[in-house]
């Protein structure tokens, strides 16, 4: 089983890296680009077959390490 974890900055947290990417996209001529926010993505291979317990285990991993919940949100997706 595999968990896909996406960590993103919370609303209201300034993201200067996202802003720099946004400017670079505009410089490349991409029109209609609004705000860009940079995040992180993890794939975690898991033993076991119960998606519900995998979900709660990975959420605990996010709380303890993968995300800094002062500034970041996380989303967990379990794939069988």
């Amino acid at each position: 089983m595999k968990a896909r974890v996406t960590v993103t900055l919370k609303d209201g947290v300034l993201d200067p890296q996202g802003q720099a990417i946004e400017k670079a996209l505009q410089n490349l001529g991409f029109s209609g680009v609004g705000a860009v926010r940079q995040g992180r993505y993890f794939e975690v291979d898991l033993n076991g077959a119960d998606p519900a317990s995998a979900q709660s285990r990975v959420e605990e991993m996010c709380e303890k390490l993968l995300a800094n919940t002062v500034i970041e949100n996380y989303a967990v997706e379990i794939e069988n």
Partner: protein
Amino acid sequence: MKAAVIVFPGTYREQDMMRALKKGGANEVSAVWHAETELPGGTDLVVLPGGFSYGDYLRSGAIAARAPVMASVADHAKKGGLALGVCNGFQMLCEAGLLPGTLMRNAGLTFICKEVHLRVEATNSAFTNGYRHHQVVRFPVAHHDGNYFADPATLDRLEGEDRVAFRYCAPDGTVDPKSPTANPNGSQRAIAGILSENRNILGLMPHPENLVEELLGGTDGLPLFESLGLAA
């Protein structure tokens, strides 16, 4: 004063720190490897020095904050023991939840390596009682992730409890959070260092340990180590 300086893979400021602690009057200073599970008996002060622990993987200080030795560090601090985190050490203290907030990428996105001016805000602590209120000091900084962030309620609380130890400022002491020269990394409210609720933990981004001798350009950092030397 018996001090323990914790060394992680990627730490490289521990020698400067140990030298500054000795110069400040600490009579016993030891280096402790991160894989230890206990601090040396009778440790009065734990120091998390600067460097790039674990290559800043995941987030600066994030992996180090979960190292085996950190449970003892937290235990020491929660019992009221003194703990100092400088630069990467400040990032670790925040990641470990021993200090509030976090250090984000510098607002200008560049690594900043230069001397900055700081205004001493809180003198009521074992770390800062050798300074005068609003004294302007000059410390070096060398970091990529020094942009202090916390939610407004936390910032208000830090200020209300006199827990902002140092702020970045202009050479004349003026604090201007919006100025890229007076607040070089864009920290919220120009915060450079904060104290814990019980005032026994200090985290700061600039390096007081690198200005403790005239030969190396000044002694503005020395009062911090001298007051620690007298603390226990």
